[in-house]
């Protein structure tokens, strides 16, 4: 009985506390008259004016396109390189210092490199996003493949499954939960690098807009951009989880039935 009550109180808190905090923020900011923290209602008004849907075509879509292309390139390269590295210990040992070093370079340090080599257009932004997103996916692909149950590997060998079949039916599915974990990490990195690359050199995009607003002291506009980026991060993450749940449904099913026995 107290368990049920506790659960009820918990649910109530989960819904009421955020509403209360938002209300407090609205109340406080309405009366605070602070230059840096404009009233919440004003931010929301500006948000509606700016992003619904005036700047969608000029800023949001270009940003999302860069993010999508860079991310897709990263996934393709990381999985393509990760498979041979995961399958061969010798290749893996040879490549590990190079991978470790490239991975350790703080991504923003590569932005100047991208600008010099590719120029300030869309290309360097896509390059920066792709370069940074590769590492989590690559490392997870390698770990996923090296972590394949030895029994499964032996069975595959005994039944003479090799080549493309082995890759498609055994290696990639077995590694996919980890590959997805890496892809999820990379997705938030992609958004971050999109913003940074647009702040450093760009003429459109959400990152550009936010920095321009700050420089021209358009504070509500700046806040609306920050809000949009937060929403985007949240939505991208939620969409990814949905996709993952679908693609890995078999995996969760197998886990649940294994635990049920």
């Amino acid at each position, binding site marked *: 009985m107290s368990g049920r009550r*506790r659960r009820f109180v918990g*649910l109530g808190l989960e819904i009421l506390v955020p509403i209360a905090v938002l209300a407090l923020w609205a109340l406080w900011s309405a009366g605070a008259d602070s230059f840096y923290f404009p009233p919440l209602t004003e931010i929301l008004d500006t948000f509606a004016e700016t992003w619904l849907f005036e700047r969608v075509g000029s800023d949001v879509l270009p940003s999302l396109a860069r993010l999508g292309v860079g991310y897709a390139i990263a996934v393709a390269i990381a999985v393509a390189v990760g498979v041979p590295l995961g399958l061969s210990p010798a290749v893996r040992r040879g490549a590990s210092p190079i991978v470790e070093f490239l991975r350790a*370079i703080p991504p923003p*340090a590569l932005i*100047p490199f991208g600008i010099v080599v590719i120029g300030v257009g869309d290309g360097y932004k896509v390059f920066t996003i792709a370069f940074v997103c590769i590492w989590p996916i690559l490392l997870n692909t390698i770990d996923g493949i090296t972590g394949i149950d030895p029994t499964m590997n032996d069975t595959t060998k005994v039944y003479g499954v090799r080549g493309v079949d082995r890759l498609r039916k055994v290696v990639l599915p077995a590694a996919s939960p980890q590959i997805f974990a890496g892809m999820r990490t990379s997705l938030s990195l992609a958004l971050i690098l999109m913003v940074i690359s647009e702040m450093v050199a760009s003429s459109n995009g959400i*990152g550009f807009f936010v920095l321009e607003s700050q420089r021209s002291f358009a504070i509500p506009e700046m806040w609306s951009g920050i809000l949009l980026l937060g929403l985007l991060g949240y939505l991208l993450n939620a969409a990814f989880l949905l996709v993952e749940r679908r693609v890995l449904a078999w995996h969760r099913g197998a886990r649940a039935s294994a635990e049920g026995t």
Partner: protein
Amino acid sequence: MPGRPSRAPAAAPIIAVAGALALWEVLTRTGMLPERYLPPMTETAQELSRLMGTSDFWSAVWNTMKGWALGLGIALVLAIPAGIAIGSSTLLYRSVRVFIEFLRPIPSVALIPLAVLIYGTGLDSKVFLAAFASFWPLLIQTLYGVRDVDPVATDTARAYGLGRLERLWRIKLPSAIPYIATGVRISSAVALILAVTAELVIGAAGLGREINLARSGGALENMYALIIATGAIGWMLNILTTRGEKRVLHWHPSQREMAR
């Protein structure tokens, strides 16, 4: 054969690195990669060794490291106690869960303009950004660690009459430490990234600003040497945190040799 211990030659990593460096040199010397984009490896290496003799370089390194250390330190001091408190109370956890889930995916770089407005373009901004960004991985890890305690252990402790504080000290903290250690490793990398970002975007003193200056001045060898130095710092921090994790967790199954 699967299951056989891998016996790749121990020299493989050295050969691979030497090969990559040689390839860089050959590609640039033969003009396959235009020199206006990428100076030869030997010239970049020379520039790097020249830089390491200058005090400007070391003061840039010092500034970057200061941003990293202060940011990570603040995150540690705030995130671990907050994670323990939130993780220990179901009601508190449910009250703040929505905020955490909403704030966590916000790219910390979105706050750069705000940081500039409030803290200016100096060290304060850099520390704020580094601390904000590295706060979340640490908080989440601590939270999960505290919530993931084996219920049998908690029940046993309760049956033996251990109080709340003692349970926290003897059961919850030890079992959360592997999670926290992973969080520290992630956060350390994040803090460095944000420190360099702040230097690059808002021009706070440090390696990021030097890289950007080298780029706009067209000093390519200088730029590449600095990028390599930045990578080396990231690499060393990664090795240090991994070593530290091993040392703190030598008793934990994940770190035992047999488990590998």
